[in-house]
């Protein structure tokens, strides 16, 4: 039983999650009649094109209507609109999987296309950049701070961190973001209040990168504020628990220097649970990204969610929900690989 098998099992269970979400989305859409609405919009769009073509050939208005009626019935049969929604489930699953959900109502991609897949695909990188930077930074700061504090339990720093993590748990990150805008952008005019680039964006690559970083400071800080406190606290507690284990006392009793006890005995044993904690933190960060992007008008999928809610754009919301789940599962899987390779015990 090797690495491959373990990863296969984890991969399959994540696929099951994606499939469960997919099924739930499609069933809810069918049962509420939203899928009918989307397909009918499709049919209407096609009919409009057919009408244009037909009106070139058929002059008699009555004939035209008759021909169109026939086309309409054909199309409705082809889309399964003549049958109840549950017969259409497989077809709907295929549509969501391929993001074949027609066109958005008002929102367009940066290049002007209003195909759902175009709009979403170009936004994915923006979200991934934001979340990755925030998670990596939080992990670095959180773990190192947690380990450091675990060596000084009960100190002032330890108590401050405990309070900070308690506050961080109760703090809505998006509101923190709004306060950041109020302070750093409105009062001190230090940082831009939102967006990814200035308008117009700088042309030179280096200036462009700098501009991007300047715009990313507040959103990244906001995302970090939401997760950092918890991560420090959890890392501290895990290290502390490991430090109380008998094998650590045994190592100390052997007279090993504290540095080696820390690195070889405590930290190595603490890494897997800390990593587990981070794996679960990803879900929170993705959720946080939806809100943070909204607050800072960061043109990723999260902001798109908000725009779609405001514009009542169903196809976009469906596609976004699916893509978010997919990205989440992918991120989880990458971390699973890391996890399995770090902790030999889980290779059952």
């Amino acid at each position, binding site marked *: 039983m090797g690495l491959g098998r373990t990863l296969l099992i984890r991969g399959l269970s994540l696929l099951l999650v994606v499939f469960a*979400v997919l099924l739930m989305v499609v069933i*809810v*859409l069918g049962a509420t009649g939203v899928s009918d609405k989307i397909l009918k919009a499709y049919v209407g769009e096609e009919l409009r094109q057919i009408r244009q073509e037909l009106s070139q050939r058929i002059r008699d208005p009555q004939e035209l209507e008759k021909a169109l009626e026939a086309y309409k019935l054909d199309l409705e049969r082809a889309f399964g609109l003549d049958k109840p929604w549950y017969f259409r489930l497989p077809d709907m699953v295929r549509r969501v999987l391929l993001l074949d959900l027609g066109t958005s109502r008002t929102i367009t991609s940066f290049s002007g296309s209003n195909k759902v897949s175009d709009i979403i695909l170009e936004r994915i990188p923006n979200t991934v950049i934001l979340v990755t930077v925030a998670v990596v930074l939080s992990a670095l700061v959180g773990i190192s701070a947690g380990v450091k504090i675990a060596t000084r339990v009960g100190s002032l720093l330890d108590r401050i961190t405990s309070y900070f993590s308690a506050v961080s748990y*109760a703090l809505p990150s998006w509101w923190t973001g709004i306060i950041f805008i109020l302070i750093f952008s409105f009062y001190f005019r230090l940082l831009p209040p939102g967006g990814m680039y200035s308008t117009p964006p700088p042309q030179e690559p280096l200036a462009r990168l700098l501009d991007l970083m300047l715009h990313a400071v507040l959103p990244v800080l906001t995302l970090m504020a939401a997760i950092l406190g918890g991560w420090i606290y959890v890392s501290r507690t895990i290290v502390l628990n490991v430090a109380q284990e008998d094998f650590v006392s045994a190592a100390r009793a052997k007279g090993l220097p504290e540095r080696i006890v820390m690195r070889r005995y405590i930290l190595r044993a603490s890494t897997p649970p800390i990593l587990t904690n981070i794996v679960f933190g990803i*879900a929170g960060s993705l959720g946080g990204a939806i809100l943070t992007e909204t607050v800072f008008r960061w043109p990723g999928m999260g902001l798109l*969610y908000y725009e779609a809610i*405001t514009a009542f754009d169903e196809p976009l*919301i469906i596609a976004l*929900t699916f893509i978010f789940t997919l990205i989440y599962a992918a991120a989880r899987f990458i971390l699973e690989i890391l996890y399995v390779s770090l902790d030999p015990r889980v290779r059952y």
Partner: protein
Amino acid sequence: MSETSREAWRVFWSSNISKLGINLLAILVIVSLYVVFTYPLDFGLKYWNNPAHWVDYPKGVPPEWAKYFTSENVTEHRIYTLYVPSESRFVEAAGLYIKRYVITFDYQYDEFPSFLSFTVFNVTFNREPPIIFLEISRPDGVSARIYTLAVPGPQEGEKKPYMRYSETPFRVFLSGDPSVAQQLSRMLKRDFDISLTPTEINTIGPEKILFGEPDTGKNFTILKGVYRVDVVLASSDEKDSVGYVRFVVAGNVYGWVGTDSLGRDLAVGLLFGFPVALLIGVVTTTLTTAVGATAGIISGYVGGKTDDIIQRIADVINNIPLLPILIFLIFVLKPSIWLIVFLLVAFGWPGLTIIVRSMVLQLRTSQLVEAEVALGASKWRIMFRHIFPQIAPFIFAQMIFATPTAILAEAALSFLGLGDPSLPTWGQILNYGFRDGGVYVGYWWWIVPPGLLIVLTAITFVFLALGLEPVVNPRLRRFK
């Protein structure tokens, strides 16, 4: 049992953080009870989300106490409502009954009012339709009749007494009304020898002309002193009456928390948020804990296929990214508070189930349970009479610890525009503030208080949970 619970309480109460938590909780509960008993049930739809209710409030102004941070004496909002006339008499020569409503006030502020409005409610007459005049006398002796309202006469077939403006009051926004501007143009010509067209007056603002002295050119400086506003009802019958007259001198500050861009008194909306937040937090976590703990105990004790199925479902739900799914479902199924609570429960129980199961697995092999089985106790009896009490303190602590999550989740959904429109919440107030661009123009009183209240409510439960930790997990006690 009572000995252990007294001991548990002693441990809980010995930490300052628990005391802080209990005190904050008491405040939250008291405010919530106050709101539940004093607010109407349809507050959201009838008042909060009804712009007509807020017309006479200043728009987007800071709280009153903000004026202590500026050197100027900022205009406070004044609403004068009179129900009984100050003076009634009969003018023989004209054959008219005159009812006079007099409002006097000392205007000592350094700023002009932000607007003026005049409202008449429920005019009742019996013969000829009455006429209502609005006159203003200024501290410098100048006075002007700035508005005349000719009440519409009886229609054919209408019965006495004739009622006007009895359902919706008649309101005139004096700062912007063309006839008011015309009257002011006449007043300026007559008393100050200044020619300004009504259009020019409306660009300067009629309230600046009424409450100011002409400076050079088209500038007006504030005129401080005692103003007198007379509302005169001239009617042909003694029984003719007016429900009330109202004159509003709109300020640049309002109330405890200020107003939003629709003029809504934010203090009123924020107060309403207390019971809603507590309700969502408490109901959601109680249900989540009940479902999660029950599933966990059954899964752990019964084992076998039941265990497999419960764990499989819990694993899948636990791995679904919560916020996107919540957004999707609430968007498609239309926002309502019960849907939000239901979904938070439906997706929130697996975490507890997984932990409780592992605890039950340990307890199942204990001697106590073995003895129970030997005595012939039923599965249910063992699960809920013997296993449950042992893990109950832990479950209770988990319940408290999960409350902030529910409160924050609802706030986040409301902020995204998916809140229940019939119940204003802190998240919704922030949503309006954000959507309206309140952040970018520095409306701090609109942005900061709702967020602080969310934090306060959430942190109350965090404190309680931290206080409970040493009770539930004795291993932590030695680090105190």
